[in-house]
C-alpha cells in the first residue's frame, strides 16, 4: 500500500516538474530586444515582421539575420536610403546604446534568423567598422 503511494507521489512530482519545465520554456526570451523592436522598428516592419506591401520590407526571411549579420548592426545604427521612394527611409537609430543594439540583434536572430547569439563585443567591433555613406 505504501509502495503504491510512493509510486503515485513520484509520478506526480515528475508530472509537476514537467509542467513547470514546459511553462519556463514558454516564457519568451529577449524581452528587452522585443521591446526595442516594437518601439524603433515595429511601426514599419510591424510586430509580425511582415512589413507593409512593397513599401516596408518583410524582414522575416531577411539575409541580414544569416549571411549579412555584421551589416545588420550598421544598418540599425545608420539607417538606409529608401528603395521605393526618396521620402521613405529607414531612419538611423543614434539613440540606441550598444547594449540595446545587442539585445535587438539577439531578438531578431532568435525570431527570424538562425538563433545565433550576438555578444556585446561583436556589436562594438561591427560599429567601429561600419562603412559610412
Amino acid at each position, binding site marked *: 500500500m505504501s509502495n503504491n503511494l510512493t509510486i503515485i507521489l513520484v509520478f506526480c512530482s515528475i508530472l509537476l516538474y514537467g509542467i513547470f519545465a514546459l511553462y519556463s520554456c514558454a516564457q519568451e526570451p529577449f524581452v528587452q530586444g522585443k521591446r526595442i523592436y516594437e518601439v524603433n522598428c515595429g*511601426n514599419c516592419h510591424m510586430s509580425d515582421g511582415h512589413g*507593409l*506591401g512593397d*513599401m516596408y520590407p518583410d524582414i522575416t526571411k531577411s539575409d541580414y539575420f544569416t549571411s549579412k549579420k555584421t551589416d545588420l548592426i550598421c544598418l540599425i545604427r545608420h539607417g538606409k536610403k529608401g528603395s521605393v*521612394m526618396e521620402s521613405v527611409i529607414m*531612419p538611423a537609430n543614434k539613440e540606441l546604446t550598444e547594449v540595446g543594439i545587442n539585445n535587438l540583434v539577439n531578438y531578431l536572430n532568435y525570431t527570424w534568423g538562425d538563433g545565433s547569439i550576438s555578444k556585446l563585443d561583436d556589436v562594438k567591433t561591427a560599429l567601429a567598422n561600419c562603412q559610412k555613406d
Partner: protein
Amino acid sequence: MIRTFAICSIMLALISCQQEIKPLPYIGDRTDIDGSMLEHDIRPFEFVNQLGSTIKNKDVDGKIYITDFFFISCPTICPRVKKQMLRLYSKVKNNEDVILLSHTIDPKRDTVEAMKIYADNLGIDHNKWWFLTGDKDQLLDIADDYFVAAYEDDEAPGGFDHSGKIILIDKEGRIRSFCDGTDPDSVDKMMKDIDQLIATYE
C-alpha cells in the same frame, strides 16, 4: 407550465435579437436648421486622388466610406494604421458600395505622383481606395469634421502630429463609427460595424 416556459424563451430570444440589430449611433452634434435637426456631416471639399482626378463630396455620395489621415514619410504610427486599412480594404474590396479614402496632411511632399507610387506599392485598386492630396489648410481643416487631430508640429517626428483614427461614414455623409487604427482589436470591432452599416441599406 411548459407553455409559459416556451413563451418566456421566445421573448428572451426576441429581446436578444433586437439588441443585435440596434443601429449604429450618429457621431457628433446635431445642428438645428429652421427647426429640423441635422446630423453632423462633412463640409464641402475638393481634393485630388492618386490618378489626378478631382474628388468632391458628390463623388462619395451614396457610398459608405472608410477614411484616415496620414503622411507618407511618417516615421511613427502611419504604417501600422495603413496595415489595418489594408485589412479593411481586403474585407470590402468586392463590395461596390464601399470605398476607402486616405488623406495626406503633408501635401507638399505627398504629391499626386508620390501618392500613386505609394498606392502602387500597397498593391491596391486605384478606383477602390483613393489617396487624397490638395490644399494643406483644407486637408487639416476637414480632419476636424472627422474628429481627427491633425496639425503641424515641428517637434513631432516627421513634422506633423495626428491621431491614428479610422472613421466610418455612411452613404449620407454622416459619421457612424470610428476605431483606433493602431489597435487590431479595435479594428475587429469596426469590421462588425461595417457589416452592420451595410446591412441597413439592404
